[in-house]
């Protein structure tokens, strides 16, 4: 670990005081997948922190490693083909990567809740809603039948499900997509977690239902003081709900900062490109979209330079040979780009 630790110390988020206060601290996390095509560095040395009660978004496109990085926190990466190769995940003072299987099971669903994209596949189809909720409570907190029943009713009420008594006896297939996602949220909240990881929680839902679910999650996490990691590709969702944003590209965080900085003064060409390529309802109808040229890299063929180089309009010679690290450009705002200072000059986006 010698060389990797020194890389981690350079990381802007790991300065003394901040890491002490953080609920979750991820340092130099490496996750690789061993495929027939070669080794994929799905997560290639990412570091970030999540403070108690805050909402952090991880944004990126398919294959950028955003889901893998979040699933790694609970060690949910299927092995094989995947493996966590190195790094630290310190949650509430304990290193999750050092725990045995029994230890991590106690964290999953109790201290850290999860909400997945497709609630139909993450709920058990042959158990009633009530049983799935009370099982969590009985397993993790040792609550007795009667108390967990009462708590289950309370939880369904909390997530806005009417007639909770009746719903407890129903099965997942009785519910609509939005209702199932509410049940998932109720389950993730059951044991009063400190952190919820939501992986594309509304991608499968319609826009009016998406708005309902996101408002609910925002309201509950604020009210109950739960921290939230939300993984999404939707830049609008991030803008509305996140305090801080990590932008991922090809397994690395390329830009990180508070939402306002990321959206108004992006300091990485990829972030800039993303923001320019989406049509927006709040602006006059543009003549033409400005897409990012090319396509995402083959993750088995990454070279020594910056992974974004073939698509980057700001590239210089250096980008071919040296991969830029994530470095501070401003208070709490960092970018992994050799042109990070140049980008600031023509910034007013």
């Amino acid at each position: 670990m010698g060389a990797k630790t020194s890389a981690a110390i350079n990381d802007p988020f790991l300065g003394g005081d901040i890491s002490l206060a953080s609920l979750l601290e991820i340092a130099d996390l490496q996750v690789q997948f061993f495929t027939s095509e070669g080794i994929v560095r799905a997560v290639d040395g990412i570091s970030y922190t999540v403070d108690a009660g805050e909402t952090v978004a991880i944004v990126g496109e398919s294959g950028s490693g955003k889901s893998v990085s979040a699933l790694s926190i609970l060690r949910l990466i299927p092995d094989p083909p995947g493996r966590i190769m190195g790094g630290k995940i310190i949650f509430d003072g304990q290193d999750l990567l050092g725990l045995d299987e029994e230890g991590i099971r106690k964290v999953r669903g109790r201290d850290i809740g999860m909400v997945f994209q497709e609630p139909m596949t993450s709920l058990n189809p042959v158990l009633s809603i009530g049983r799935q909720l009370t099982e969590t409570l009985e397993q993790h907190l040792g609550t007795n039948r009667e108390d967990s029943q009462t708590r289950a009713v309370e939880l369904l009420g909390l997530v806005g499900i009417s007639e909770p008594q009746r719903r407890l006896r129903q099965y997942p297939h009785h519910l609509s997509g939005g209702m199932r996602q509410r049940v998932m949220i109720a389950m993730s909240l059951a044991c009063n977690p400190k952190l919820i990881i939501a992986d594309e929680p509304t991608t499968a839902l319609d826009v009016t239902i998406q708005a309902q679910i996101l408002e609910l999650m925002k309201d509950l996490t604020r009210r109950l003081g739960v921290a939230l990691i939300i993984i999404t590709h939707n830049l609008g969702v991030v803008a509305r709900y996140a305090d801080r944003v990590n932008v991922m590209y090809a397994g690395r965080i390329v830009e990180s900062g508070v939402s306002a900085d990321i959206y108004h003064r992006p300091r990485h060409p990829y972030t800039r490109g993303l923001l320019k390529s989406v049509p927006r309802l709040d602006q006059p109808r543009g003549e033409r979209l400005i897409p990012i040229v090319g396509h995402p890299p083959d993750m088995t063929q990454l070279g020594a330079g910056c992974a974004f180089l073939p698509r980057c309009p700001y590239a210089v010679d250096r980008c071919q040979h040296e991969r830029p690290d994530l470095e501070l450009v401003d208070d709490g705002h960092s970018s992994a780009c050799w042109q990070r200072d140049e980008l600031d000059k023509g910034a007013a986006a």
Partner: protein
Amino acid sequence: MPEPQTAEPLLQVRDLKMYFPVTDGMLVQRTIAHVKAVDGISFDIMPGETLGLVGESGCGKSTTGRCILQLEKPTAGQILYHGADLNRMGRAELAAMRRKIQVIFQDPFSSLNPRMKIGDIIGEPLAVHGIEPNSADRAKRIAELLTVCGLSPKMADRYPHEMSGGQRQRVGIARALSMKPEFIICDEAVSALDVSIQAQVINLLEDLREEFDLTYLFIAHDLSVVRHLCHRVAVMYLGKIVELAPCDELFDNPLHPYTQALLNAVPVPDPTIEAGRKHHLVKGEVPSPMNPPSGCVFHPRCPVAVENCSGPVPELREMRPGHWVACGEVS
């Protein structure tokens, strides 16, 4: 056949209904109900126009597209293409018409045969319809189509799994173009693509529209993409068109409460604007199309509903030039 003049609509949909039977019983199947996927909709599309069809899942927008393509046999209504009713055409006539009407599907993974080379995927319709029976001519045409869609002609020898999602969607577009169509139905054609790739494909669709004078029916749930691409937009809810207007008019001045709710629910990629925006959440969920509410289908969720809304079904009324709304409370 009438002259395709600019004043003549290319496509006229009249009171289209598509009811799917719901059956029960193991040996003797009885129809116990109908899902009214599309329940009496009418619209026109002019040559060169792009009409957006938006709405949430289950509103009937894709079924409408499938009826136009004759992939479903509509329960009732007319689909007039250049004035001729597609529902009443014989096989030969329909086959000729099918060349004029093409489709681009959402999922480029499942709409391309994984065991065929890209060149064969694009070339097959050319052979089937006898357009390029000679294989050398066909290869030339395939190379041309790939180039038009921003792909290298060398891609003809590849298989779909060797391509990225964006490239596959370009193949789907090339296949649709191979028939030199007039009219293309884009059914969620950019929805499955990543943001950076989506913009490339949107630009390609715009370029092709220009170059080949194409008319599009653009079916999508992403309102910002629809606003960018379309000339007119129809909003569907539970099998009905609730609002139909020129694009800017619809987005600047939405009149139907459902359209307003839909627009309000879309988050804007700007944290400063989002922090200052008021969000009026629409309550409840879309009811089952098997048993739609009486009167206005939106009334149980509508913030401005009055008692009368559960009574007679509101008709589309023209509130401003070209701006049609099916709501009794709009004046």
